[in-house]
């Protein structure tokens, strides 16, 4: 019994075989990455020996962090509550301000190109500035305390929520809007009865998502003097009290994880 699956002669099969795809692109990519790696490690003076000699320091640090000094907990509860307050207020004000901004940026509501293109451009510029940088500037303007932190989080929230919302508004169903126009609804009525019902669940979800990010951000804003629990890092690290630092880190992690979990569950219910 002979099973001849290959009926074609060997030579014909050889010519029919497709050429493997060119690999030049892969090699170029790898070469580019290697060049970047070499150049940036030279620029940052990164060295493996330094890391290895630093390892025992690191290990000592970790050893000193444990066990955490739990008695320090009472001192930082106030800072933690301030962190949550800052995130809450910053997100709320940001969300309220984001509503008109996103209406202005949406191409299907703002018909004028000269109006929505510049608004989007400004929004993109605002979003390039990291929140901690904003906080550092606001601290030098308004002085130390939670106010500059709240302002920084507000600006950051406006940027993020507006961007997500205007992209959502551009995808809404135009039926209700046309029906409202036909029935003689004015601009405000079209927004309230035509746009809001379509986006409110998603909008709330964006706000909660921004709140999650803001809680994380607010936890480190104190490092530049903008209030919240971050103030305590420098206080404890400066005095080499690492067992207190670990309490701050663990407390922050716990609060962030709880808020993330609650917010994710809420968002799942919303959508």
């Amino acid at each position, binding site marked *: 019994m002979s099973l001849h699956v290959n009926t074609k002669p060997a030579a014909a099969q050889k010519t029919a075989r497709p050429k493997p795809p060119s690999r030049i692109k892969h090699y170029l990519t790898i070469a580019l*990455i290697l060049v*970047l*790696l070499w*150049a*940036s*490690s030279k*620029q*940052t*003076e*990164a*060295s493996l020996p*330094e*890391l290895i000699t*630093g*390892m025992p*320091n*690191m290990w000592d*640090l970790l050893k000193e962090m444990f066990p955490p000094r739990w008695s320090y907990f009472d001192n930082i509860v106030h800072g933690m*509550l*301030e962190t*949550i*307050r*800052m995130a*809450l*207020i910053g997100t*709320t004000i940001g969300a309220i301000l984001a509503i008109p901004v996103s209406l202005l940026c949406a191409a299907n509501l703002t018909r004028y190109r000269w109006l929505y293109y510049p608004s989007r451009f400004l929004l*993109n*510029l605002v979003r*390039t*500035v*990291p929140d*901690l*940088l904003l906080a*550092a*500037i606001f601290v*030098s*303007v*308004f*002085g130390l*305390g*939670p*106010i500059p932190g*709240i302002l920084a989080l507000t600006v950051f929230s406006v940027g993020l929520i507006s961007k997500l919302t205007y992209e959502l508004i551009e995808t809404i169903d135009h039926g209700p809007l046309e029906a409202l126009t036909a029935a003689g609804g004015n601009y405000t009525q079209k927004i309230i009865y035509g746009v809001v019902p379509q986006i409110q669940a998603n909008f709330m979800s964006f706000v909660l998502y921004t709140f999650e990010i803001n809680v*994380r951000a607010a*936890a*480190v804003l104190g*490092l*530049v003097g903008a209030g919240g629990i971050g103030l305590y*890092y420098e206080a404890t*690290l400066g005095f080499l009290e690492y067992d207190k630092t670990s309490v701050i*880190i663990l407390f*922050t*992690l716990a609060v*962030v*994880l709880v808020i*993330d979990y609650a917010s994710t569950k809420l968002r799942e219910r919303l959508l």
Partner: protein
Amino acid sequence: MNNIIIQKPKKNPYRWLVYAALLAVYIWAFSGVPFTGIKETAGTIMKSILTGLFEPDWDYVYLPDGEDLLRGLLDTLAISVLGTIISAVVSFPFAIWAARNRSRFRTVSGSGKIVLSFVRTFPELVMALLFIKAVGPGSFAGVLALGIHSVGMLSKLYAEEIESIDRGPSEALLASGANRFQQLWFAVLPQVLPSFLSYTLYRFEINVRSATILGFIGAGGIGTPLIFALSTRHWDRVGIILLGIIVMITVIDLISGAIRRKLV
């Protein structure tokens, strides 16, 4: 002709409770913040920062001897490039650990996911503070902080990508007697590589933003001259640094976005 009356949708009977709770939360939040103690000079400083933005200190862009804007930005860029490459390499094994379809037991991938979410919530600035204690202040501490912190997010994205691949090639290789490494190399890697690169570029965009602020705590980059200019009230220098950061981030976002659109 009968008119059909459409019933209004029923409202949640507990909604007033929700509103009351929200109101209580907001009263708690606003009552706890001291809305006083703003510096009287706030207005003039704001004005000088804005003037600084429009009349920046152009001389600072390039100084022949040492610390200037271009070198600061280059340092920032190098920190983010190196941090991203390190995290991409470290993320790969973590992703395989956390991917559900790469291990036989749920507990293995589950434990990987918990470790990753722990890394993700650990603030990178705090990580940078700890690395400064270990290797001393400078760019290298920033590189290590970014490299480790990014693993949390990158591995999660990588793992989700691995979970969504087509099982066909993997099974075909298994049937022809390939070992686990061969399956990984010939079936998994070709499928996930474009998305991996795209995610890495996305993380790179985030890392550039983070690297601009690492200098605030002494971990290298443009943040150090910025915080110095802020505290010595060189508003025109603050202006040029801010402009430099905004231009750099915008350009990098544009380039990286274009490459990502081509990749996926």
